[in-house]
């Protein structure tokens, strides 16, 4: 009885291998269509532009696998970067405090969502929508609706844009994204948290009745997603060398889109980190490629829409064949 088994075991890998297919096709297409696409600087540009959304999407993957959703990632990211700014610039504390503060802000917001969802019984959509608004408002309130500039803290911009590997021109943000990707993949597939994450998404009631404290794990999962959001916020601030309090809304949809295009099911219980990374890359390759081709912007959105349908459909066809 290989086949159904194939789906979960070897086939799992095969399938993602094929999902990479869509990505490869896009890359090849754009390389042929424009000589300016396949250049080191552009590749790095694409990766850099994937980093922030990609990291948000990593966190969102955990939440979505529980069968939940997190609409707050965009503005919580903003709140985290503002918090980092306040700690580093306004309070003039060392960078590391700012970084930790930003990440903790994300984690705290995540855990609050988790709390509202589990202990108050608010549906994830509503709880995180509310958090989205709260974080948006708070970011403006605590920053006095003005950007916070890190210009006097030169090291800060190095977090995202410095290069740590000598000789190779890969910005840290890209490295951080891939390292976080690996960490996320390990957490999801090798740890208890990952195991319970899938279990909850697959059948929350049955998981509860197996004696697992679903509430606590869910709060942990939303908190973990918040950590990723916080890191994204710090990177965002570093890359812009400023904390911009009015940014971020709308990023949640892009992050969720990356997750879903990567094959993770919104009804929970199924998903992979590598899929999310590929999903995020598909989105940014597409955006970048169309820009490099100087397609008028209104057509860009149309093309992105069509290609998404197409890519996901290809993926579905392949899986069906199995």
């Amino acid at each position, binding site marked *: 009885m290989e086949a159904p088994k194939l789906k979960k075991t070897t086939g799992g890998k095969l399938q993602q291998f094929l999902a990479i297919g869509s990505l490869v096709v896009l890359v090849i297409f754009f390389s042929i269509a424009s000589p300016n696409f396949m250049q080191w600087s552009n590749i790095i*540009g694409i990766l850099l532009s994937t980093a922030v959304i990609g990291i948000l999407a990593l966190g969102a993957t955990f939440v979505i696998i529980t069968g939940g959703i997190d609409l707050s990632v965009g503005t919580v990211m903003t709140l985290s970067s503002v918090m980092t700014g306040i700690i580093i610039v306004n309070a003039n504390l060392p960078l590391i405090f700012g970084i930790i503060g930003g990440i903790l802000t994300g984690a705290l917001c995540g855990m609050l969502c988790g709390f509202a969802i589990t202990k108050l019984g608010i549906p994830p959509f509503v709880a995180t929508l509310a958090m989205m608004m709260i974080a948006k408002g708070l970011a403006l309130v605590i920053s006095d609706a003005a*950007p916070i500039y890190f210009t006097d803290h030169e090291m800060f911009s190095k977090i995202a844009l410095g290069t740590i590997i000598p000789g190779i021109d890969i910005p840290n943000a890209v490295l951080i994204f891939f390292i976080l990707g690996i960490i996320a993949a390990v957490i999801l597939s090798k740890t208890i948290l990952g195991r319970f994450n899938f279990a909850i998404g697959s059948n929350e009631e049955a998981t509860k009745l197996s004696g697992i404290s679903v509430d606590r794990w869910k709060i942990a999962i939303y908190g973990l997603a918040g950590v990723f959001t916080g890191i994204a916020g710090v990177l*965002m601030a570093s*890359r812009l060398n400023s904390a911009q309090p009015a940014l971020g809304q709308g990023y949640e949809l892009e992050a969720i889109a990356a997750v879903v295009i990567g094959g993770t099911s919104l009804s929970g219980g199924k998903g992979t980190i590598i899929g999310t990374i590929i999903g995020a890359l598909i989105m940014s390759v597409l955006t970048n490629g169309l*820009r490099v*081709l100087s397609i008028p912007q209104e057509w860009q959105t149309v093309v992105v829409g069509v290609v998404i349908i197409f890519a996901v459909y290809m993926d579905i066809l392949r899986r069906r064949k199995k």
Partner: protein
Amino acid sequence: SEEESDSSGSADSQGSTDAPAESSDKPYVAIVSKGFQHQFWQAVKEGAEQAAEEFDVDITFEGPESESQVDKQIEMLQAALDKKPDAIGFAALDSQASVGLLETAKSQDIPIIAFDSGVDSDIPLATASTDNEAAAALAADKMAELIGEEGKVALVVHDQTSITGISRRDGFVNQIEERYPNIEIVDIQYGGGDHLKSTDLAKAIMQAHPDLKGIFGSNEGSAIGVINAVQEMNKVGEITLVGFDSGKQQIDAIKNEVMAGAVTQNPMGIGYETVKAAVAAINGETVEKQIDTGFYWYDKENIESEEIQSAIYE
């Protein structure tokens, strides 16, 4: 207006914007702007608050999140009318769409002062505005001068459909097309004023046109995107950047010669003049129909001048 804490009990941190009309005998001016989160609008608000303090009136200041939200702005105007203000300051996202409410205001004898790009109607008693198109044309002239009147340039614009976006884009493009036949506009992309998106977008433009000579960023977010892009692509100095509006990063970039210069309006002046005209209208004084708050080119040379310093904000 800071001294009074209002009945709803929510507000001290935000200074003067929260003064509710009903708890005070002071005249009340409701300002409905085109935005509120962005630096430009915050600067307008600051100017308005200055005037409010000076002339001892209460104001409120609000605006939608993006310049495409015509309907949200109308709802704000409606709510403002319901608060029975003594005057209204209004920067229309779409004049046509707001005609009905403006007429209501007129019928209730509430004076309207238009600001920013103004309101296309004769109801407002005064308009405190700058000419966005002319300002962008100035940016085009400067760009042309800086790149020797020939070569390829691109635009990163903040909005495809809003008046400010369109008029800055068209002001720039028309000027180039009319005056500088050897300059080619190779790409116009829209980044929504989002710093990060504008950065990625400007990088893609530079990628697509390796021989690009200049980029114009049409507002603060777009300009910063362009600045980030040349820095990340290590092309500082190779590409001439012209910006719009101000803000610390843009000012720094100009001082550091990353950006050649920018055109700024006088947002604080706009806010100030709006409230001032509103107060005059409330007091039955005649007000000047057109209050030109001006725009300025600033670069490394003149940035410290008093005139520029009063127009730019960090």
